[in-house]
């Protein structure tokens, strides 16, 4: 008697959760098909791929496909560029997104918030190819907006696409322009979800805006910041191909400051078309990302356990 009752509650509970499981299903299938099944392709990185023999039948070549990533005078530069740009993006975009989110949370008019939100979100939706032409419209020597301005002020023009010094700033700015808005939406949602009583109580107690931000909003946002940062650390060896290849318009003179692992692989493979070698690059990037995320998560767990990812 007792048993059946217990059993029926379990069934009831499961039945109650059916809609939830159904909701998970599309995402689960997406992850399975898009992210997990292709993982088996990792073997290609260790093979000398021959279509006649098939993927599994091809000869094993050990780590031979990886050599070109390290045995090149450019190895240090592409690594430096990839990691340093990503670190810069992380710091600048996170700070900017937090600032935008906090500013927006202070706006009381719902309509205005919507307008601003749309404005900061639109750049995220613009394809990098389009972005590259927008940047070009600003920077090109002949008709560019910036050079037009310089001319009208009587200054000499700057040939941006042959001057590497400006590009670290340009790329960081473009990435900020494109990415900060999206990240700020996450933070804004968080802030709006906060217990408003707490903030009200603080202001009644005489806390000014800055104090409220510093002592209430930021600490409450900390978990989200940590999660997002952890996620981006896992991608620290990857770079946005569009940003580093399209935006500088593949200009040779800029390669010293724009070559990252992805563009290096792309340029090298254009003529070789070696699938094994390009898979090796992908494998290398993901492995480093995976190891890094384990380490950083370990550190997080040690210092603030409840904020760790796992």
């Amino acid at each position, binding site marked *: 008697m007792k048993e059946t009752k217990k059993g029926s509650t379990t069934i009831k509970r499961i039945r109650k959760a059916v809609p939830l499981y159904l909701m998970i299903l599309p995402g689960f299938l997406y992850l399975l098909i*898009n992210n997990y099944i292709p993982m088996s392709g990792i073997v290609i990185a260790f093979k000398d791929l021959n279509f006649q023999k098939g993927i599994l039948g091809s000869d094993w070549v050990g780590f031979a496909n990886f050599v070109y990533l390290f045995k090149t005078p450019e190895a240090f530069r592409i690594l430096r560029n990839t990691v340093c740009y990503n670190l810069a993006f992380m710091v600048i975009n996170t700070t900017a997104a937090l600032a935008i989110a906090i500013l927006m949370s202070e706006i009381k008019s719902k309509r205005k918030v919507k307008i601003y939100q749309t404005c900061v979100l639109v750049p995220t939706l613009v394809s990098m190819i389009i972005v590259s032409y927008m940047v070009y419209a600003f920077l090109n020597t002949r008709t560019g907006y910036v050079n037009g301005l310089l001319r009208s002020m009587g200054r000499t023009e700057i040939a941006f696409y042959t001057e590497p010094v400006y590009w670290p700033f340009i790329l960081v700015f473009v990435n900020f322009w494109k990415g900060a808005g999206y990240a700020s939406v996450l933070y804004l949602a968080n802030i709006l979800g906060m217990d408003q009583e707490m903030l009200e109580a603080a202001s009644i107690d005489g806390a000014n805006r800055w104090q409220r931000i510093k002592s209430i909003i930021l600490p409450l946002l900390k978990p989200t910041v940590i999660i997002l940062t952890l996620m981006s650390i*896992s991608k620290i060896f990857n770079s946005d191909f569009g940003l580093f290849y*399209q935006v500088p318009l*593949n200009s040779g003179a800029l390669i010293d400051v724009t070559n990252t692992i992805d563009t290096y692989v792309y340029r090298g493979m254009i003529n070789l078309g070696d699938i094994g070698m390009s898979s090796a690059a992908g494998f290398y990037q993901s492995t480093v990302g995976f190891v890094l995320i384990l380490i950083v998560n370990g550190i997080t767990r040690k210092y603030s356990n409840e904020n760790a990812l796992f």
Partner: protein
Amino acid sequence: MKKRIVSVILAAMMALSLAAGCGTKDDGVTKDANVTNEQGKDSQETPEDTKEPEGTGEPGDAQGAEGDTSSVLKDGNVQELLMLLPGPTSSPDHMQDVEDRMNEIIAKTIDAKIKIQILEWGNWVDQVNLMMSGGEKLDLLVYANPALISNMAQRGQLLSLEDYAPTYAKEALEASGKYLDACYVGDTYYGMPTFRDLATSGGITCRKDWLEESGMKVEDIKTWDDIETLYDKVKEKHPDAYMGVGNLHAPVLTYAGLYFDGPGAGVGCRMDDNDGHIDIVNTYASEEYLEMAKRAYRWNQKGFFIPDPTTDNTQLEDWIRWDQCFSSVGGVHPGSAPDMTRSTGKEMVGIRIEPRKMCAPSVGWFQWIIPAQCEAPEKACAIMNLLYSDPDMVNVFQFGVEGKDWVFVDEEKGIITYPEGVDGTNVGWEKGMALVGNGSIGYLMDVWPEGIYEAYKEYNDTSPVSPLFQFTFDNTNVKNEIAAITNVLEKYEAVIGCGLSEPEEAVAKLNEELEAAGIQKVIDEMQSQVDAWEATK
């Protein structure tokens, strides 16, 4: 607290979807990039594709199907074969008509039907790659870029034509002649080159009116120094105009390369290396290259080139149409000036500066190939043969349907034109001569001068042939070096070719980095392969 946990979970989920979103987006961008890149490549090729052609119109006796082949070709089993072509749109208006007409011709000698599928230029290369890798139905196609074709061949994705062509495509073999040698991968060939400009050349295609103004004559201009004199004179009259433009990302001056055949990463031999032993050298360390670099720099200082030449994406035809530029710098073949005249609206003249060179990549750029998954290779091969030997087939393939896509101007001479109200932009079917097997046996579109097919033949046949013509470089052992070298070249080649940096310094740095990237290893590897290849000749 609960709220906080929920919000953290929500944030995590959003972060995940963000990450996932980024992942897909990255892919998208990378793919776009490929596409753009290919488009870049294509657009360099398009002058050829947009050519119209036509020919002597002699009624060739279509098909070499003799008794022994007809048992295979006429086996009573009408198979449907998929023919894949590139084009500006995937469904031209008269595709069905053309397909029907072609099937009528095919039915005479072969029990097969073709189904035409057209991929747009922009994603053509990528999509063909996918279809081949995925083993989709595909029986016959024309493809570009010999490097990609030889990669496919080495991966076992193509059928060797040596097994079929001598029996089923005799006329095609004949039409290809010595140029077939360029399609060898190892000791067999997988493709058949098409009829078009097969040699690489250098020179300028310039405005006739400005040239006449300068007082110089085409015949007087024989060297790059003469061109410099011409540019000086024109620049005096038109100080605001630029003198030379090239294709996007292509260096404006590249003629140094015409002295060399470089099968891999700038490593190759001199075109005039006829002393019995082929010496493999680094072409970027040559005097010719340095001289070219100096000239480019000088020209840039003189204001001959547009600003930002390596990134400016304005079509070179537009510069000329807007009266802002005198000439385009690059290959000059019989069709280039008529093509430019059409696309710029100014009368253009081609001035070729020797040398020319005939190397495998330029010959093999467009090839008809049969993929490994072909269901009836014999029939596919025989259909391909029709494109080299049957004028009716060639005309349908190239110009579409009479009355709808073209009309006769002079039936006797086989000269045709667009019908009223039709032009290159709205014609229901048209394929460039570069895609047809042998366009020279078909009609001639009236936008081209009479005798252009002969001019093409002469242009091709008189060009010096590279000592390495039939040699295929196997880069398996030096892939790492080539990846590094390609990166170095991307950095310097365009900058030097457009004269953007001090030549001596830039060329020295280029060679320094090439050394560091391992160019010597590539030279040694190629030298040993060439020696072995020569020994077997």
